[in-house]
């Protein structure tokens, strides 16, 4: 009994296991669909919309939509890529992203996507919102200026007994991520490290460390994000 389904991405015949999310199915077929809030192996949330594709002509988030038989997916067109680029630009102007002084620069997924889409300047005016830095935790620093509210930390960082360490607080433009004071104070080194790594931007930083990799050798200095998938 075969559970494989056939579908097309930009006209290319692809195959994947039934129920696979489009992003994963594309990856298995050597096609990169940009993602930001998605984490491999964790239930998708579909909050950033960077992965928007056209599914049978309708815009859908590729990280939350499973492939079905005969699906026609459009991924790589100037229009779709410009929509993605505009989302990245919104994220830049909504926060305070001073890349030249950011510890995550060169390893940041938001910045890497801006490089991929050649963002020279956001098309929207800068907001320069008033945001703070929460340095109360003994192991990590939470910089709200750079947080893109992707929820990755909420979804992926849990204690051994399954409790969330991170949570949303407030609403709208004031929305921010807080660390549970008690659970956060008892962070194991591994969990703190995992939180730093799960954050796509420089909003969760390790204490007493930073700028360790020289410019030129960081993850996205020479290599375009997604090119590892496209090479296959």
């Amino acid at each position, binding site marked *: 009994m075969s559970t494989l389904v056939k579908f097309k991405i930009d006209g290319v015949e692809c195959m994947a296991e039934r129920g696979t999310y489009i992003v994963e199915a594309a990856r298995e077929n050597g096609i990169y669909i940009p993602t930001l809030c998605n984490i491999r192996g964790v239930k998708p949330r579909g909050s950033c919309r960077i992965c928007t594709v056209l599914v049978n002509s309708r815009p859908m988030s590729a990280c939350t939509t499973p492939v079905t038989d005969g699906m026609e997916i459009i991924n790589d067109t100037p229009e779709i890529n410009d929509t993605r680029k505009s989302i990245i630009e919104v994220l830049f102007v909504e926060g*305070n*992203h*001073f*890349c*030249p*002084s*950011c510890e995550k*620069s*060169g390893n940041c997924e938001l*910045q890497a996507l*801006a*490089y991929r889409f*050649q963002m*020279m*300047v956001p098309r929207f*005016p*800068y907001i*320069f*919102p*008033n*945001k703070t830095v929460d340095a109360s935790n003994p192991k990590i620093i939470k910089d709200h200026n750079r947080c893109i509210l992707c929820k990755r930390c909420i979804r992926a960082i849990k204690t051994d007994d399954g409790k969330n360490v991170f949570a949303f607080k407030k609403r709208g433009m004031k929305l921010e991520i807080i660390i549970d004071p008690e659970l956060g104070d008892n962070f194991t080194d591994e969990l703190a490290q995992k939180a730093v790594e799960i954050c796509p931007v420089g909003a969760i930083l390790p204490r007493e460390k930073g700028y360790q990799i020289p*410019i030129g050798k960081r993850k996205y*200095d*020479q290599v*375009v994000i997604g090119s590892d998938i496209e090479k296959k």
Partner: protein
Amino acid sequence: MSKPIVATTSLAGCFGCHMSILDIDEKILDLIELVEFNKSPIDDIKTFTKKCDIGLIEGGCCNSENIHVLKDFRKNCKILVSVGECAIMGGLPALRNGIPIKECLDEAYINGPSVQHNPKGIIPNDDELPMLLDRVYPCHEIVKIDYYLPGCPPRAELIWNALVALVTGDELKLPYEVVKFD
């Protein structure tokens, strides 16, 4: 045919972008073959003596003088290019954007740890001094900017490629490694 004329300025910047222009090394000899410089810290011409083709702007606008100079550049240059993060988004000077101006001045002249002697608590305020703006503005929020070269500073190769493309009309080469935000 006369050479295209280039003007440059540093507004609220650190001169790093100008350093990056000089970082083209021996290509500087090609550059002076290619273009003529007018108002610029590079040749120390202080005021425009003719209309220019290309204006390179380093730094954003943090005070009234920056605005004045930027508008002067817009008036005298056919093409304006925002060079570097400060021109594009305010850069490090814009770190003050969330802080009220009074607090900034108090910190600089009265409370700051490096303030040596200011018993009367004087904050400089004179007609000769440019007024600080309420926040630091990206150049394109003040005048129309035609092109943007990101980087802190933009790689010398990016500035060179852009100048050559503007002067020759050839397509701009943008290799992945040269377009960076830091």
